[in-house]
């Protein structure tokens, strides 16, 4: 085939991809970056400077929320891993045949329902007039209804719930490929369960663990719905600050600075996670 024709061909095929990446990802993110360094000095007049970042640092409410959000996301990620691992192991290595595929599908189903609906379910259960209080009162365990919503623990629980799918699926996939004879060999050699887990199962599952953790961490850090609906004023999430700067305070420049910080931290932690476990992004994501 003609060389030139082939080049054109590649060019044409790559055009939509380039348009997509450049117009919807690179330029907007660059604009976010640029905007974060602009300070409003008058109506429609801007100057370059670090003012937005200074404003961020000078307001403890902002940076405390920021640190809290990052820490909570890390904790939520670890907790999700802890909750999901036994389930993934059960589906991949204990359950057989139809039960196995049924459990797997059951695991997926809730997550195709809008996050809003899922949180709504939790709200029905946990609010002051909710089901949990109703039952606790019926059982005479409490006399006054307790507000379970708007607490950190509740937010954490909701975040784990929302993230489970993204942890279970990659874990099941890697554990499926774990050769059972390895486990038998380990048992045979007198290795206890814990040793098998530490020496064989976890190293084998590492790609799945990393990819699950990255997804969960990203989703948690960028979460808005669960944090707003289950958390209250006292358990503010950083995305809510960003939203407020854009939609209610109308301070886009500060919002951009905050958004950019969130992006940097999330990318950095993802990178660090990949680095520490020796994985590659394109391997992990496919």
């Amino acid at each position: 085939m003609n060389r030139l024709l082939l080049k054109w061909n590649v060019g044409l095929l790559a055009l939509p991809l380039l348009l997509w990446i450049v117009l919807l990802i690179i330029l907007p993110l660059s604009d976010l970056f640029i905007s974060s360094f602009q300070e409003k000095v008058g109506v429609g007049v801007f100057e370059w400077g670090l003012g937005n970042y200074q404003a961020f640092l000078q307001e403890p409410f902002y940076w405390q929320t920021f640190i809290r959000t990052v820490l909570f996301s890390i904790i939520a990620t670890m907790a999700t891993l802890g909750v999901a691992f036994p389930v993934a192991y059960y589906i991949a290595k204990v359950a057989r045949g139809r039960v196995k595929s049924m459990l797997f599908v059951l695991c997926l189903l809730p997550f195709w329902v809008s996050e809003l609906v899922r949180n709504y379910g939790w709200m029905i259960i946990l609010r002051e007039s909710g089901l949990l209080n109703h039952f606790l009162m019926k059982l005479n365990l409490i006399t006054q209804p307790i507000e379970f919503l708007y607490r950190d623990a509740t937010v954490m629980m909701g975040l784990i719930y929302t993230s489970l799918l993204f942890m279970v699926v990659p874990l099941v996939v890697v554990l499926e490929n774990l050769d059972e004879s390895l486990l038998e060999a380990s048992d045979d050699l007198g290795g206890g369960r814990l040793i098998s887990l530490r020496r064989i199962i976890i190293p084998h599952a590492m790609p799945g663990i990393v990819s699950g953790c990255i997804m969960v961490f990203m989703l948690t850090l960028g979460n808005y719905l669960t944090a707003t609906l289950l958390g209250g004023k006292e358990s503010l999430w950083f995305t809510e600050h960003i939203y407020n700067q854009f939609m209610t305070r109308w301070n886009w420049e500060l919002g951009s600075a905050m958004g950019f910080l969130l992006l940097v931290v999330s990318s950095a932690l993802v990178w660090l996670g990949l680095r520490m476990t020796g994985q590659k992004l394109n391997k992990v994501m496919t």
Partner: protein
Amino acid sequence: MSQRSVKVLAGIHKLYIVFFFAYLAIPLILVALFAFNDAPYPALPWRGFTLEWFLGNKGVFQDERLMDGLKVSFSVASMVTFLCLLIGTLNAFLFERRSFPGKGILYFLMLAPLVVPGVILGVSILIFSHTLTNGIEGFLGIETEILRPGLLLVTLGQFAFITTVTTLVISARLRKFDRMQEEAAFDLGASHLHVLTTLTLPYLKPALISSGIVAFLMSFENFNTTFMLVGSDAPLTITLFDSLRQGATPVLNAVSVLLILASGVLVAISLFVQKVDYILDEHSK
């Protein structure tokens, strides 16, 4: 380890699984249940079964705001699905069938939307569209309404990250295609286009269907990106969110039931297609 403790451990594991699935299912079951409770609030006590919240005067189907939201969501999701499948397919051919300098970098960039939080993607597109609108106004003196927050931006914003998903799914399928078949068809006198429509696309069909369904659902339930870009026409998730903040009503439960059913059906179709796909694969070995 003794036989007994192994058994106990297995029992605990099983119990854990039971609790886990209860944890998954209970919120959804309860949401659904209270759509049928004959009471103005989704709370106990149970006051008897009713379809009022679906069919009644104050039911979902009479609620104009929700119905509008549903329509908007549907059209946005359809558009997003179409675009994501189209571009995802082109991307799959580009990455699986062509080699060119910078391919690795481009692939990495293609994955990037997955690691950009949805809120950030939303606000950055918002800022960029604002910059563009101002730029156009400054240079050409034309006011462009089209790039103000609204359905176009919502569609583009969702498209921006869902395309990565369709690209990955379609590429994975295309990678498994036996290219010898294409050569054979070509040898039998088929044109490139004919080969594409009679062999390659039919082979991709299961991946197109299931990634199309995934794209549709992701678009339909997307909140984070949409929230930042929405204008006066709000998709269903936004409408629901506003209603929820004003207070829970059984109508919201009724909408949720419809959403649960719809996603259930779509997921079932997608699973069925994947299963057929799997069977086909086994046979062609």
